[in-house]
């Protein structure tokens, strides 16, 4: 078995995991099931990153999404009173137009993705391991210095906003 076939097999297995678990997240009426299948979605995406030689991105995905956000969601679900037993109020509206739109969009996107020659497609060999972390670190504080700083302002604003909205109103 050559490396190209192996790459394809791993890719399809990971993609199937992501798609299957993501549809459970969306369609499940039980929020605990949804939260746990999100775990597989996030792991699958991390796997895709590893496959594409994006090691730093994969580790970040694991630490931030699986380790941070997902655990936070699970704690939120478990600590919230009664949320486990209550069905989430979901309804489906406009099924036919939505289905037509989704099929159309998916069809157009797939045909375009297949027809287009993508830059750099098929040039990475996943068996050659190169670490990307130093390059990313260097780019962040040189080429993308401004973005790095703007992102810090975005985070500052998000923290202030969260505190402002969540803070309990003092009754005098």
């Amino acid at each position: 078995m050559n490396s190209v076939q192996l790459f394809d097999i791993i890719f399809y297995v990971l993609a199937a995991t992501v798609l299957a678990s993501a549809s459970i997240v969306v369609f499940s009426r039980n929020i605990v099931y949804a939260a746990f299948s999100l775990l597989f979605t996030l792991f699958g995406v991390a796997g895709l990153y590893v496959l594409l030689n994006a090691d730093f991105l994969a580790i970040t995905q694991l630490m931030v999404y699986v380790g941070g956000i997902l655990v936070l969601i699970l704690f939120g679900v478990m600590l919230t009173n009664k949320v486990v037993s209550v069905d989430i109020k979901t309804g489906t509206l406009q099924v036919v137009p939505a289905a037509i739109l989704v099929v159309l969009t998916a069809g157009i996107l797939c045909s375009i993705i297949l027809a287009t020659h993508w830059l750099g497609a098929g040039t990475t060999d996943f068996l050659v391991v190169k670490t990307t972390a130093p390059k990313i670190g260097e780019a962040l504080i040189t080429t993308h210095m401004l973005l790095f700083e703007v992102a810090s302002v975005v985070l500052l604003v998000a923290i202030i906003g969260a505190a402002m909205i969540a803070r309990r109103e003092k009754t005098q």
Partner: protein
Amino acid sequence: MLAQILFNLAFIKPEIALTMTLCAAILTDLLYKNRTGLVAGIVLGGFAAAAIGLATQAGLSVSVFNGALAIDPFSNFFKMVILACSSFVVLFSLGSNEVSAMKSRQGEYYALLSAMALGMFLMVSATDLLVMYVTLELSSLTSYILSGSMKAQKNSSEASLKYLLYGAFSSGVMLYGISLIYGLTGSLNIFTINTVLAHGGASSPAVLIAGIFLLVGFGYKISAVPFHFWTPDVYEGAPTTITAFLSVASKAAGFGMLMRAFKVVFIDTGALGTPGAWSLLHGIDAQSILIVLSILTMTLGNLVALWQDNVKRLLAYSSIAHAGYMLLGLVVLGNDGFSATMLYFVIYMFMNLGAFYVVILVSNNTGNETMESYKGLGARSPFLAVGMAIFLVSLTGLPPTAGFIGKLYIFAALINAKMVALAIVGVLNSVVSLYYYARVFRNMFLRESTGETSLIPISMPTYALLLILLVPTILLGLYFGPLVQFAQYSVAMFGIK
């Protein structure tokens, strides 16, 4: 590299001033409890510092931070509009009952206004798709928070949540478009993208789809139809000061970014043509998409506005319609169209902020924004009613107000470009808009007040502020030469002849 970064810092003085204002406002709010006036003063001082920074950059045309930002007359023009609008909103907020009802959250409110101004400053300068995305997120994120800042009101939280959901979806689609463009061209810098596209480095259907996805992000920011669904609910639920801010500054930032991206990415730099006119790259019909978008935007905005009974909602749909008129300036594909849109923005700032300021003052007194509460306003406060009437006449685009001049230049640019049909659609739309603006006149002057009949007290600063908005709305309709020249000068973007 370090020397270069330090050198580049000299070109973003206004942005640095705004960032420091944000930090200073937060720290002041932490140190001194309930000193709202002080925080607002610091924010205003920061805006003044940013204005001085802007003035020192007049006439510059440089690219800084490895092509992340362009400091040029075009971005300076939009930054001035954004800064003026932000300062007006701070002044409005000081006299708004809705803002003073926020009690201990007012400090954050003013601090976030400067953060939003920072995001919008960077948006109009951005020449890199990733920078565009992150700065768009910065300004959107602050708008979600500010829309929901009246926690006691259910509407406000609803507005914030709806805005967040629409915003998250739109920016997700936009990000997907950016990733497609990166996959096609291997670059995020809009100048490089243009070069690659011009050399046929990308097949057109994929570019078209990626472009449409990008347009979802831009369209959401300028509330163009069909990406406008959040607008009425958010404009109605948010504090009126923020509604005014979103309808002018946020739209200006979105337009600045859209205009730069549209022109730089799709211009055919090799084509020879008459000076001031430019042609698009072969194979991508971005012009037709914008034509459809602008017709839909103004027609839907105006028609739906006819049925509104809440003045804030009415002005929301009217602002959608105005985005449509301003898009007309883009489809001309020429510098005169761009300068007409930019001129329109200055005028639109005065008239739209003025209309919202009257709404704030009336709701301070009546506690709501329904059409009912405008009945008999002519008798209760002649000054407010006449002011509102002038702003609305200007929004309709009738002479001798500034709104007429704004529309005149846009329609003239269309006719010069031989797009007469489109100009007729625009004029017909203005006629429709007269009907719903006239409903407000009728309530103000021809109907008796149903409830309260006492005079509405107006303080001296309020008089002054309203006059500052009122005088340009009339004056720019009579003496507009210098402003037109300034707009024509400011069309110049970095990197494009």
